[in-house]
C-alpha cells in the first residue's frame, strides 16, 4: 500500500524501544521504503526528539524503564496530537490495552515479536491516517483564518453601518448574542469531531461546562448492559477509569434529574463526598428509539436555579452531538479490542496458519507460522496442508483469499520411520541368528581339533600352551555367539530356575566393548534365592540397561551392579554416573520408539521391551535419576517359593 499524496520528503516515523536490537531490526525492515525512521532508546529521548522533528507516526514499546508506553504516548498525544500512535506489545492484558486506548488513543497494537508485513502495514496505515489528519487540520485552520477575515470584514462593515444607522443598535445586539451562541455551538461540534477517545470527550464536555464556574469535574458512567458500568472521572490531571458492578435502577431512566434523592444517596455511598447539588444527565444512544441511556453524566455544582437552567439548556443543546461521538468512540474501542482478541486467538494456535492472496503471497500469518517457516529449520519437518478459500468483503469489493492450515505430521512421520526401522531391526536380528549358526560350526571344529591335539602331543611340547590359547579363544567366540542366538530365538527358550548373580555374569562377556571404558563395581548378595525365567530374555534386559548406562556415561564413569532380596522379590540394580534423565521424560522413556539418541544410535525400543519382559514375569522395572548425577534402573523379579 502506498501513501496517497507522496510528500516531498518521506514521512518520519519515530521508533521507541529500550532494546537496541529491536530498533535495528526496525531500521532494517523499513530500509528502502519511502519512510524515514528515527529511533530513541528511551521515552525521554523520544519526547526531546519530538520537539525537533516533525514526526508523523510514533511506535513505542510498552515496557520501558522511565515510563510505560501508555504514559509516553499519552504525553505525546497531549503535546503533539497529530502524531498517530502505535504500540508494540508482548501479550498484554485487557485492562492495559483498554487503558492505552483510552488514555493515549493508541491507533493500533502490534504484537511482539512482530510479523513484518503486519508491522509495515500498521506503520503505513498510520502514516495515511496522519496524512489525512494533517490535511484535515490544515483545512480547519484555513477555515478559521477565513472566518477571522470574514469577522473582520463584518466588523468593518458594522462600524461603517454603525456610523450611519443608530436605530438598529438594539436589534444588532440581539443578533450578535444569537450569533455568538451559534458560533460557540459550532466550535463545540468542531471540537467534538476531533475527539478520538473517552478522555478527550470528557475534556471537551467539561471545558464546555467550566464556563459556569461553580461546577466540579463530572463523573461519566458508561453503562455496559444491565449490571456493569465503567466510571470515568478526572483526578489530578489524569483521567481515571474503573469498573462498577452495581448499577442502581434509576440510572436507566432517560430523564434529567436535579438533586434527586436516589442520586444523592448513591453519590454519598460511592463517591463519598459532601455534596451540594447534583445534576444527572442521561445520554441516549444514537438510535433514539432506545429507552435506555448509554451513559449518565453526574455533575456536582453550586449553581443557583437561574444558572442551572442556563447550563441545562446549553447541555441539552449539545447532547445529540455528544451521543454521536460517544457511539463512535465505543465502536472504535470495541473494534480495537476485537482485533486484538482475534489476533491473540490467531496467534494462539499451535499449528501454522497463513492467509494468501491469489498470487500465493502471504498477506497474513500467525506466530507459529513465522516461527516455523522463517529462520533456520531445526530439523526437517513435514506438514499436511488444509486449504480453503475465503472471500473478505470490503465495502463494495470482494477480496478473495486462501487460508492455509498446516498440520504438523513430523511426529507421525517419525513414528512411521521408526516402525520401518524396527522392522529392519527384526530382519537384522534374524540375519544375525543365521550368521551365528554359520560361525558356530567351524568354531566347534576348531575347538574339537585343539582338544585332540592337546591329548596327543607330549606335555613338554612348547606348542601345547599355544594350542590351549586357541581353544580358549574359540570358547570365548562361542560364548558370544550363544548370547547372540538367545536374542534371535527367544521363543524356543525354556524356563529355567536361575540365580540372578549368575545371570548377570553370563551377560557381561557380551558387553565387553561397552564396558571397556567404565569402572565396574559389583555388590552381589549371595543369598538371593532363585527366579524362574527364560535366560535369554532377562539377558536381553540386562544387556539393554547396561548399554544405556554406558552410553549415558561416556568415559570414566562408574557402573554399579547390585543384587539383593526384598520381600518376595530377587532384585538387581544397574546404576550409572551418567547424565541423568530429566523428570519430564522419566515416564516417556518407557514408551516404544522414544529416544533422545540420534538416528542409527537409538531405536527407543530398549526400555519398552525391557519393561514388557519384566512385567510378563510379574516383576517391576523402576527408575531413579537425578540430573548430572546419574540414573539407577532396578529390576524386581518374583522369587520361586520352595
Amino acid at each position, binding site marked *: 500500500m502506498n501513501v496517497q499524496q507522496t510528500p516531498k520528503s518521506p514521512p518520519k516515523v519515530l521508533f521507541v524501544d529500550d532494546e537496541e536490537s529491536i530498533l535495528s531490526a526496525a531500521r532494517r525492515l523499513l530500509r528502502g521504503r519511502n519512510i524515514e525512521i528515527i529511533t530513541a532508546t528511551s521515552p525521554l529521548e523520544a519526547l526531546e526528539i519530538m520537539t525537533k522533528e516533525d514526526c508523523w507516526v510514533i511506535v513505542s514499546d510498552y515496557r520501558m524503564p522511565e515510563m510505560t508506553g501508555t504514559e509516553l504516548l499519552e504525553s505525546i498525544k497531549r503535546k503533539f496530537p497529530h502524531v498517530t500512535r502505535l504500540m508494540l506489545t508482548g501479550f498484554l492484558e485487557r485492562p492495559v490495552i483498554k487503558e492505552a486506548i483510552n488514555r493515549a488513543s493508541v491507533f493500533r497494537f502490534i504484537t511482539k515479536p512482530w510479523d513484518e508485513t503486519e508491522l509495515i502495514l500498521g506503520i503505513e496505515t498510520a502514516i495515511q491516517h496522519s496524512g489525512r489528519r494533517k490535511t484535515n487540520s490544515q483545512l480547519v485552520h484555513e477555515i478559521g483564518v477565513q472566518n477571522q477575515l470574514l469577522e473582520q470584514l463584518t466588523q468593518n462593515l458594522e462600524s461603517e453601518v454603525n456610523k450611519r444607522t443608530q436605530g438598529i443598535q438594539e436589534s444588532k445586539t440581539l443578533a450578535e448574542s444569537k450569533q455568538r451562541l451559534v458560533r460557540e455551538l459550532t466550535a463545540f461540534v468542531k471540537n467534538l469531531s476531533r475527539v478520538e477517545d473517552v478522555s478527550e470527550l470528557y475534556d471537551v464536555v467539561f471545558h464546555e461546562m467550566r464556563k459556569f464556574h461553580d461546577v466540579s469535574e463530572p463523573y461519566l458512567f458508561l453503562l455496559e448492559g444491565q449490571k456493569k458500568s465503567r466510571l470515568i472521572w478526572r483526578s489530578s490531571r489524569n483521567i481515571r477509569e474503573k469498573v462498577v458492578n452495581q448499577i442502581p435502577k434509576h440510572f436507566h431512566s432517560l430523564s434529567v434529574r436535579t438533586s434527586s434523592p436516589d442520586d444523592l444517596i448513591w453519590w454519598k455511598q460511592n463517591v463519598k463526598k459532601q455534596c451540594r447539588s447534583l445534576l444527572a444527565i442521561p445520554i441516549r444512544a444514537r438510535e433514539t428509539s432506545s429507552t435506555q441511556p448509554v451513559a449518565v453524566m453526574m455533575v456536582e455544582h453550586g449553581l443557583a436555579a437561574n444558572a442551572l437552567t442556563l447550563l441545562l439548556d446549553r447541555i441539552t443543546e449539545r447532547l445529540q452531538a455528544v451521543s454521536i461521538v460517544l457511539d463512535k468512540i465505543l465502536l472504535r474501542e470495541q473494534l480495537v479490542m476485537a482485533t486484538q482478541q482475534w489476533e491473540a486467538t490467531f496467534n494462539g494456535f499451535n499449528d501454522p496458519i497463513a492467509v494468501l492472496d491469489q498470487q500465493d503471497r502471504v498477506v497474513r500469518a500467525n506466530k507459529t507460522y513465522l516461527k516455523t517457516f522463517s529462520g533456520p529449520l531445526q530439523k526437517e519437518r513435514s506438514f499436511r496442508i488444509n486449504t480453503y478459500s475465503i472471500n473478505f468483503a470490503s465495502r463494495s469489493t470482494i477480496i478473495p483469499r486462501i487460508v492455509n492450515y498446516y498440520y504438523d505430521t513430523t511426529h507421525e512421520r517419525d513414528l512411521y520411520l521408526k516402525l520401518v526401522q524396527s522392522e529392519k531391526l527384526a530382519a537384522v536380528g534374524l540375519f544375525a541368528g543365521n550368521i551365528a549358526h554359520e560361525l558356530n*560350526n567351524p568354531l*566347534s571344529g576348531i*575347538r574339537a*581339533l585343539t582338544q*585332540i591335539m592337546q*591329548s596327543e602331543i607330549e606335555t613338554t611340547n612348547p606348542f601345547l600352551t599355544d594350542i590351549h590359547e586357541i581353544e580358549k579363544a574359540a570358547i570365548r567366540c*562361542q560364548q558370544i555367539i550363544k548370547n547372540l542366538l538367545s536374542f534371535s*530365538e527367544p521363543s524356543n527358550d525354556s524356563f529355567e530356575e536361575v540365580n540372578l548373580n549368575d545371570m548377570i555374569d553370563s551377560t557381561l562377556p557380551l558387553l565387553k566393548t561397552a564396558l571397556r571404558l567404565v569402572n565396574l563395581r559389583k555388590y552381589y548378595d549371595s543369598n538371593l534365592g532363585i527366579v524362574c525365567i527364560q535366560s535369554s530374555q532377562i539377558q536381553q534386559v540386562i544387556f539393554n540397561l547396561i548399554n544405556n548406562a554406558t552410553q549415558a556415561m561416556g568415559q570414566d564413569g562408574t557402573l554399579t551392579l547390585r543384587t539383593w532380596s526384598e520381600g518376595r522379590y530377587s532384585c538387581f540394580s544397574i546404576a550409572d554416573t551418567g547424565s541423568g534423565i530429566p523428570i519430564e521424560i522419566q515416564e516417556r522413556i518407557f514408551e516404544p520408539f522414544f529416544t533422545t539418541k540420534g538416528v542409527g544410535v537409538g531405536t527407543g525400543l530398549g526400555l519398552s521391551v525391557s519393561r514388557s519382559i519384566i512385567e510378563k514375569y510379574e516383576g517391576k522395572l523402576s527408575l531413579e535419576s537425578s540430573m548430572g548425577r546419574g540414573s539407577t534402573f532396578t529390576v524386581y523379579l518374583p522369587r520361586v517359593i520352595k
Partner: protein
Amino acid sequence: MKVLIVDDEFIVAKALARAFESRNHQVVLAHTGEEGVEKWESFAPEVVLLDVVMPGLTGPQVIEEFRRRQDSNSPLSSAKIVLMTAHSGVRDRAAAHGLGANEFIQKPFEDIFSLVTQIEKMVVR
C-alpha cells in the same frame, strides 16, 4: 567299529574323524549328503554321524534316501544313526526317532572325547 561321518563343514568332520581314530575306530568321511548315501552303501558303517543342515540333501533326507534305495529283500542297515544339530530347538530322542534316527547330539560339542564315549556306549547297547 566303523563310523561314517557326514558333515559339510570340513574342519568339524576332520575333528570328529581324528577323535574316533584316536580310539582306534575306522572312519570314513563324506562332505555332502549325496556322498554320504553312497558311502553308507559301500562302507556299511555301524554308526552314521549326520549333520542336519547341509547344502543339497539334509541329514534327514540322507536317511530317507538311503532307506529308499534299500531293496525290500536286502537286510536293512543296522547302523545307529546320530543327527548333529546346532539349532537349539527340538532335540530330544523322540524327535530323532521321528526323523528315522536314534539320537540327537547338540553342536557345538563341549568335549569331543566324551562325545566319542557316548557314541561307543550307544553301539554296545
